[in-house]
């Protein structure tokens, strides 16, 4: 089979630029609008409420560079992502933030937030308790009350009331963003997906750092052109799943070997935009329902393992031939799910490759392993 080398096309340059220059974007946004910027850790943060308050939410991500500034603050057995995030704060790269917040999820990223809270002066800081037992019927009413408190806190900070109308505006804006990205992902189910996994990653991750008004316009424009785009034979159709992953270098390396990522289960991918907020009824209840019922982070996926069926179905829907299971080193929630996911996917006929991410990726070693993995898939095609 011919390996297809796919150049990034202009179509996704805007998303790539927003991702690569996210700090410049946020600073310019702030200057242009005079608004506040909120740095957030973890995608359980209800951005709807922030948009309702005209605050720009910017996800705090790492820079994938070796660093030595977090050692005094976070024990080295915690994941490299949380340390990389904190490093950005300690190095002053988010000096434009007006506030920081976290919605409770894993212990690891929580430490990036708390150390940031201690050492980096910020005007506003909020820890949003968030149900871990999302399968409990009590989770939605509990989260709703937490959202009430959070909304009040934001109102006190910005000095004005957030109305239900404001909330509905926030909900509609983000729902639109989710809907548009979902439409793009639908195109990846085709025989010849019109975009690469790298492009999809730029699209979703940039959504986490860019004003959704701008992002939605770019998505609408993209969707006009994308269906007719042909980038050739996708090669092996892969899915990628695991912990936080915005390692574009890794995605690019794999796709340069002739395969294409057709979908993912990442918080920088489908977990971020699947499931919309119900636009009718009480807005805070609807927001709470969305964050309780979204595809969960493994830290919240208990006692039943709901992710398994979801992942298997996604592999079928996107006709994936193989899956790369990738996790941040030391990421306990994913480490606790990966063995059963691997076993389940293999029972369903998918080849799997497990890799651990660190702040920087050993591209040479990973390339050798991915090449071997793709060869296995190709041999299966032969027989």
């Amino acid at each position, binding site marked *: 089979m011919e390996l297809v080398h796919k150049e990034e096309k202009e179509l996704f340059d805007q998303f790539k630029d927003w991702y690569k220059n996210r700090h410049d974007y946020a600073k310019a946004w702030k200057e242009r609008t005079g608004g506040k910027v909120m740095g957030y850790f973890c995608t359980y943060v209800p951005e709807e409420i922030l948009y309702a308050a005209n605050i720009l939410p910017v996800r705090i991500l790492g820079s994938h560079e070796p660093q030595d500034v977090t050692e005094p603050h976070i024990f080295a057995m915690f994941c490299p992502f949380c340390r990389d995030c904190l490093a950005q704060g300690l190095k002053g790269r988010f000096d434009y933030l007006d506030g920081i917040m976290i919605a409770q999820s894993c212990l690891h990223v929580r430490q990036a937030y*708390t150390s940031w809270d201690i050492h980096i002066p910020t005007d506003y800081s909020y820890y949003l308790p968030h149900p871990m037992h999302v399968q*409990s019927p009590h989770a939605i009413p509990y989260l709703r009350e937490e959202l009430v408190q959070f909304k009040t806190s934001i109102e006190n900070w910005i000095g004005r009331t957030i109305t239900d109308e404001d909330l509905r505006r926030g909900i509609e804006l983000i729902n639109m963003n989710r809907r548009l990205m979902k439409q793009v992902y639908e195109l990846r189910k085709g025989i010849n997906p019109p975009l690469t996994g790298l492009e999809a990653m730029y699209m979703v991750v940039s959504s986490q750092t860019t004003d959704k008004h701008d992002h939605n316009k770019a998505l609408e424009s993209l969707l006009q052109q994308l269906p007719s785009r042909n980038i050739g034979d996708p090669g092996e159709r892969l899915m990628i799943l695991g912990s936080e992953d915005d390692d574009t270098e890794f995605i690019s390396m794999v796709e340069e070997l002739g395969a294409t990522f057709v979908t993912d289960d990442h918080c920088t991918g489908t977990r971020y935009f699947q499931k919309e907020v119900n636009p009718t009824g009480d807005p805070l209840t609807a927001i709470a329902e969305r964050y309780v019922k979204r595809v969960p982070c493994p830290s919240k996926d208990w006692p039943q393992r709901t992710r398994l069926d979801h992942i298997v179905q996604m592999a079928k829907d996107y006709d994936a031939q193989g899956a790369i299971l990738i996790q941040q080193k030391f990421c306990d929630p994913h480490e606790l799910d990966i*063995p059963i996911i691997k076993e389940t996917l293999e029972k369903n006929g998918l080849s799997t490759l497990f890799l651990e991410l660190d702040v920087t990726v050993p591209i040479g070693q990973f390339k050798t392993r991915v090449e071997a993995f793709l060869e296995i898939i190709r041999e299966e095609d032969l027989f």
Partner: protein
Amino acid sequence: MSSTKYPTERLKCWGKAKSLRENYYKDFAEAHEKGGIRWAGGAWSFDAIPSGLGEDVWALTGEPYGATVAWNKEFATECQEAIETKGYARDLCSYMRNYWGSILLNKYAWPQFSEEFPKADFIWQDHICCSHSKWYQVASSLEGGIPMYSIDVSVGPYGELTDSRINYIVGQMHDGIKWLEKVTGREYDDELLINAVHNEFRSCHYWAAICALNKAIPAPLDEKSMYSLYVLGTLRKSAQWTADFYEKELYPEIKDRVERGIAAVGNEQCRVMTDTQPPWAFLKVFRYLEKYGCVSVGSLYTFSLIGLWEDQEDGSWGPRAIPDIEITNRDEALRALAEWNLSKPEWQHFYHPKLKSEMMIRIAREWKLNGVLLHFNRGCEGLSLGIAENRLAIQKAGFPVMPFEGNMGDEREFDITKTMTRIDAFMESLEFEKITE
């Protein structure tokens, strides 16, 4: 000539504590022979609740079990290697890996009571650490699908408690009782629940009261001994035998030791505390400290894994008073239980390290410490959470800190020689010399 400056005595109730612990593991193993029920779950689970199923209900709490395995280095390694072959990472909670390995090998850490690992009838867990519910999710599947229930208690720090947060927990508890009735086919007895809640109040209060007595100079207890005593609260804090032992035997004996000036370490000249679980296979570290006349008087971990604390009238830190309330029905019992547990000091740092630093500095001051030994424990992400920030805060408060890296349950990650050398250097920096070789 002896350099001992304080009198020492063996604990009179030591043998009783040992036999209570052994009976606990024996009862669990033999529960089915007696027509009883077995459940498994964490040491922080609301163990008072399954008590309502009857008096023939026995538990196996995972963390003390994992520690028991860890103490047996050969068995622990066998367990860890067994689970690693199933694809589980070796950086996961080492108690959890020891527990899972025991299931996989079908070996009980107490072979005198059962050669095989006794399978629980159901799992009853709570959740504040990422590994809590996932631990038993995996355990359930390794054992062929044991029914599991878990209660999320991670609702934020006690100081910010709201009705909604309590209601979330109590709602899960009520659902859990219905679930218990369904999976066991038994009718639930609220009187047994209420008794268990009162027992838990007593256990948590008196354990803290015992630890508070260690403010005395010389300290009547050393931390190595405390490990064998606090464990009863981690096995079954709501049992009458635990509450009675703490209230009627251990507390009076330690009080008496303080009054008579009986020391745990006869040549006490230096007082430290530790943090997090110790490397169980290497408790000789504590004996090594004694060569310097150094006693570890405890830790936030030993004091408050089970003990509950509050400000006393004189401004000091002491045991949380036993609630002076009449509990008349299930809902009142569950609310009291939830509220009581949410004040647990060891639950606070899950939201911010500053909450833990404040308590540790308070201990350092009130227990009159010379320094602090922090175990950067690779085996427990929950209790190591924020430990690096705790180190900075304690140092800033003026207390010398010696961090040492290890693992509570995986001896492959602990370097005893380097740790001893580090202790030598730390003691030298504190200007203490060895008293005995």
